[in-house]
């Protein structure tokens, strides 16, 4: 976008004609970013791969932050009447632990995998709306930082991540913590919504030739399903947060009982969002596991259509079970009955997946790499979590279990054992593709066992203490309620705390593994795992434009079928390797297009994204600041809309001395 013009350096002035001053030239500090290397290439990128990596790094940072919050909680609860955290700080701690893990780690990490691999897996060069993609990331980062600012500005939100009314209203939560929480989540919600629109359009419109919907890899399918879930769920939480913010900031009475409101309104709104949300958290990991298991079993996924349809069924039925979070809220026996039965129903498609994964491994040739260990770990732990879930689908039973540590155990088994183990499987599986090096396998296995054992030590005993009557969200527990004997609630609380620190050691080991690999590991081969899907048909890391020639797809697991041919006779299958990954890649490169146009980087998404927290700060403290932020947002929207997708030739300074930083990003290059 030309903001400040300069005259063209044309020699026409020497013949007396007035110089031509054109609109396309720009000058000064605000020129369009065009770098392909260096920190500027990350800051202004619209490349889905770089955005995916940034999502991953940011999400992992919040995983660590959320983990630290959890460690503090467990340290406080390791013994009776703990004094490490005061009641007020503890309430903030568990609220922010859940918020960080759900909104700032799990959702963006799913976005990381989706952003990086979805275009590659469907044979596209980028997503449908690259600048919108960048906007989504910066919005998420801005919102995430904004929510955490509250720690330094009077105290973080302390109403629980579920933020029930009327406890969330100003008389009961007087600090600004909840304001930061609500507005910050609105901002990250914008990120999720734009990402959803982006990926849905990409999948529906940009699949390569021959890639029908039922030939897409399962990761792509699961990511697609959650984008639809996000599309419909995020507006619900947006409405709920609007009502809450209007009540807190402008004195509305949506949840004010004295004015005739019913506090259950918030619960319904939140859980109509909240239940699809948990499927949003776990389905991408299901997708990852559905990629990893077949590769390391040397067999295709058993029952691909069943896995796909059960994913869609989970997404669909997930909308009809929200009030199972409200069995004790007094919604009446008829509603309780209906939701109880619906919740039991949703166990069926989940069971289908477990069965299919197990049958994928059955009769296979199992190679226990770290990624495979994590994937099997997910199958085991999620089964345990799912079974405890069935026990609380039984509503009368749930009235004893809800709001106790039994529920904490259940959802940590499905979220940690499900989502987190899945993400780690994805890390170890795709690291060589994304970064060109394999993570150390030995360290990886120790990482796996530490995390698995730690997880079971932490959350296994929580089933027990929950059934023994320890409620959740309590900053202390007492000896008086802990029961007699050695194996009383006190013992299991201590075990849980030890387990939490074990997990922490495992995570540290992963970080160490990453550092060690980055420093000193040798480059990885193109196809270290003998994989099956299209993203492996690229260089490691993939070129900026992904594929030199968009591949033509003839079957599910296209890459595998290009490498192996069935030379057996009737009824007898005999797979022979006919091509290596390198040969296939060379073949594709030979057919490469020569005129590939990629969208150019831009800073408008970032400017727009960071104007939003300015508006939010203004809403909380001073309306003037909100107006300033809104003006910036308006300017950014204009700048974005008027900026062409591809930068003009004249935006590039002639390189001073062949410096690499200014090469045109519009031509397929070898980076």
């Amino acid at each position, binding site marked *: 976008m030309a903001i400040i013009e300069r005259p063209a350096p044309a020699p026409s002035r020497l013949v007396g004609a007035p110089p031509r001053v054109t609109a396309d030239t720009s000058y000064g500090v605000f020129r369009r970013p065009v770098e392909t290397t260096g920190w500027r290439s990350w800051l202004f990128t619209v490349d889905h791969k770089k955005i995916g990596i940034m999502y991953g790094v940011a999400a992992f940072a919040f995983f660590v932050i959320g983990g630290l919050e959890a460690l503090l909680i467990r340290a406080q609860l390791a013994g009776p009447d703990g004094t490490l955290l005061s009641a007020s700080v503890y309430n903030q701690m568990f609220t922010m632990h859940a918020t960080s893990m759900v909104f700032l780690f799990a959702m963006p990490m799913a976005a990381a995998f989706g952003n990086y691999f979805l275009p590659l897996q469907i044979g596209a060069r980028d997503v449908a709306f690259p600048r919108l993609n960048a906007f989504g990331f910066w919005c998420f980062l801005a919102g995430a930082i904004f929510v955490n600012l509250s720690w330094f500005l009077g105290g973080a939100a302390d109403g629980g991540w579920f933020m029930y009314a009327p406890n969330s209203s100003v008389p009961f939560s007087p600090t600004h913590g909840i304001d930061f929480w609500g507005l910050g989540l609105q901002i990250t919600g914008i990120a999720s919504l734009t990402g959803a629109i982006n990926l849905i359009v990409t999948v529906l419109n940009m699949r390569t030739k021959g890639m029908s919907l039922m030939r897409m890899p399962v990761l792509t399918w699961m990511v697609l399903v959650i984008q639809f879930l996000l599309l419909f769920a995020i507006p619900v939480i947006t409405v709920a947060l609007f009502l809450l913010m209007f009540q807190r900031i402008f004195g509305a009475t949506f949840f004010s009982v004295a004015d005739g409101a019913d506090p259950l309104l918030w619960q319904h709104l939140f859980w109509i969002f909240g239940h699809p949300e948990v499927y949003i958290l776990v389905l991408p990991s299901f997708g990852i596991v559905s990629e990893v298991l077949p590769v390391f*079993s040397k067999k295709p996924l058993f029952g691909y259509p069943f896995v796909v349809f059960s994913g869609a069924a989970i997404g669909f039925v997930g909308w009809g079970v929200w009030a199972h979070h409200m069995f004790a809220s007094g919604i009446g026996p008829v509603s309780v009955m209906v939701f109880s039965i619906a919740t039991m129903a949703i166990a069926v498609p989940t*069971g289908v997946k477990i069965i299919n994964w197990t049958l994928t491994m059955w009769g296979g040739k199992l190679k226990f790499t770290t990624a495979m260990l994590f994937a099997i770990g997910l199958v085991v732990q999620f089964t345990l979590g799912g079974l405890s879930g069935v026990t609380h689908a039984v509503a009368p039973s749930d009235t004893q279990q809800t709001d106790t540590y039994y529920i904490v155990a259940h959802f940590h088994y499905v979220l940690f054992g499900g989502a987190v183990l899945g993400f780690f499987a994805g890390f170890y599986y795709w690291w060589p593709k994304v970064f060109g090096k394999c993570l150390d396998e030995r360290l990886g*296995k120790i990482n796996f066992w530490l995390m698995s054992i730690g997880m079971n030590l932490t959350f296994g005993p929580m089933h027990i203490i929950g059934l023994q009557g320890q409620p959740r*969200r309590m900053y202390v527990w007492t000896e008086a*309620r802990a029961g007699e004997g050695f194996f009383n609630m006190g013992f299991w609380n201590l075990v849980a705390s030890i387990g939490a620190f074990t997990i922490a050691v495992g995570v540290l080991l992963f970080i160490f593994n990453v550092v060690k690999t980055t420093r000193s590991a040798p480059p990885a081969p193109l196809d270290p795992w003998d994989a099956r899907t299209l993203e492996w048909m690229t260089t490691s890391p993939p070129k900026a434009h992904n594929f030199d020639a968009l591949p033509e797809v003839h079957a599910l697991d296209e890459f595998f079928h290009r490498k192996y041919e069935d030379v057996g006779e009737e009824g007898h299958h005999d797979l022979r390797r006919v091509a290596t990954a390198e040969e296939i890649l060379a073949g594709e490169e030979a057919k490469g297009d020569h005129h590939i146009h990629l969208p150019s980087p831009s800073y408008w998404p970032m400017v727009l994204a960071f104007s939003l927290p300015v508006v939010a700060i203004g809403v909380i403290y001073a309306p003037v600041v909100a107006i300033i932020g809104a003006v910036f947002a308006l300017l950014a929207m204009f700048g974005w809309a008027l900026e062409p997708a591809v930068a003009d030739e004249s935006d590039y300074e002639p390189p001073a001395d062949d410096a690499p930083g200014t090469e045109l990003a519009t031509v397929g290059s070898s980076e």
Partner: protein
Amino acid sequence: MPRVPAASSSSRRLIALGAAVAASMLIAGCAKDAPQDTWDPAGPNAQKIHDLQWPVFAIAGLVGVIVMGVIIYVVVRYRDRGQPIPEQTHGKPALEIGLTILPALILIGVAVPTVGTLLALSKTDDTECVVNVTGQQWWWEIDYPPQAGCGGIDRALITSGQMVIPTGTKVLVRGTSRDVIHSWWIPRLNGKRDMVPGRVQTVRLEADEPGIYAGQCTEFCGLSHANMRMEVVALSPEDFATWLANQTAEYTAPEESSLAADGEAVFLSQCASCHQVDGLLTADGAPAIAAPETRVYAGAAPNLTHLMSRNTFAGATFDLLTSSCREAVWEASPEEFGAAYLAGVTPACLNSVDLREWLRNAPEKKPMYADPTELEATDFLTRGMPYLALSEEQIDQLVAYLLERQ
């Protein structure tokens, strides 16, 4: 190719892990006598839940064991031993449909008794006694409406922290809240029910035998959610009648110029604006009527008329009994329990440590929003008891006075 260690050691480790998990689950059953143990029902409602719960757990456990078993088998049997690339089976629809229908049938089998139990637990037309409960940050108010049930109650009674009920009686708890959502949960007697402001929700309670049954607020309600507890005390119908008579007994003023009489004066000046003691008269002989709505945001404070007939205070967080006396009550056998409880808090059994600390500085002892400089959001009304700056002498007098509130 990355190095892959011998598969057998991984599977061995997997089996070891599985065994460890299973063993710990078994040990679970050995934890004894947790007062809020959901698997130790003491009344027909909790028993119905338990009768539904343990078969479901057993089925889930069995399914879990089968699935783990299959996975362990697969992991051991099909590990890479150098075999050729296996058959690329894409699926067996018949098998899959069968394995989908099987869990569905199991779940239907679970659903039917679920519905039955649910309906049984929602019955209110066979109620024999009604007790009202009102949650407030961070204590429970309990009141008994006039009714024919519970052996006949002529006038409304009000107490806090401990709900006394006759054994073998179908009690219906009708509950609400004055401020945020709380939840009433006595695990050994029934599941929990949220107490929502502006709504009245009901939950059934029935205890088989005399005893004291512990409970906790189980819906996050703010700062001292962990310190909001309650107990249900079940007495035999005869003992319950005694308790009722005691609760309706007239106020006995303390003896002239005793420590308790001074305590009464201190109470009138420091406490009576919020805490109601029925029968207490002001200096001019008029009944002292508490007006807690002028000091407390939610508008109520515990009624202290018969404080020493209960044995906990401050949201049942602290004991009024010393630990040996407490043990005598909590560990009493069902036959002896009634007498032990009805004895109340005698001077010998008074736990004056906690009571004094509370009177000295309540917000220090239990986190509450009582700091006068930070109450703008609630129109300068507190949530909880404020710091009163009482002298030690005043505390002595108050304790003596309160001790007489039997």
